């Protein structure tokens, strides 16, 4: 079956602009996660959704970052007023409900802020 998909695959933007990153999880997966991968910070957790609610937003680095999930499926990560330090690969993952289930990752969106 189809895996996790993310769009766009690459995004180049200017400092101060807003960007939206999209994630389509595996059908039927109720849990959805956003992570950020950068050279200096490794893999960082950003936010977790169970269904449409986000019980854990603890990893969002600032109030410029927000995310939503609609219909228990597609999720959008929005970064407002982008800064150069936001440049990274943003990874989305999904899993079945239950903490022992592995997370399946999408290919990521490479964000470059000029």
């Amino acid at each position, binding site marked *: 079956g189809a895996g996790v998909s993310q769009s766009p695959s690459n995004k180049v933007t200017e400092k101060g602009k807003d960007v939206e990153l999209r994630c389509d999880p595996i059908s039927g997966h109720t849990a959805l996660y956003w992570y950020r991968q950068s050279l200096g910070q*490794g*893999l960082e*957790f950003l936010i977790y959704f169970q269904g449409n609610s986000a019980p*854990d937003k603890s990893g969002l680095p600032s109030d410029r970052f927000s995310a939503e999930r609609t219909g228990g499926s597609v999720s959008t990560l929005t970064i407002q007023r982008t800064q150069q330090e936001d440049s990274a690969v943003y990874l989305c*993952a999904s899993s079945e409900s239950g*903490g*022992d289930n*592995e*997370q399946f*990752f999408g290919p990521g969106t490479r964000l470059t802020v000029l």
Partner: protein
Amino acid sequence: AQSVAQPEDQVNVAEGNPLTVKCTYSVSGNPYLFWYVQYPNRGLQFLLKYITGDNLVKGSYGFEAEFNKSQTSFHLKKPSALVSDSALYFCAVRPFSGSARQLTFGSGTQLTVLP
């Protein structure tokens, strides 16, 4: 808070030789442990996990990992390395209990298998 250490940034091994990629963890209570592999410009691919039961876990592509509770380790192993195993490997942990669902990852180990 949980943490994962991968003490080696780089591991080189000759094709056909056994390989080990090290991982130690810190978590309150019992852990769920995972290994993922990342090929260039690709997302992370799941290799194997330890939930409970047998300490030796077998996964994809001939990889296995051994859970050692006393040493808080979960080293990844393969008896005979292939050049195609060259990639970036990540160990990850999340606590068995509690509401946290996200994975905490190690810094990654670049495995290079030399022909």
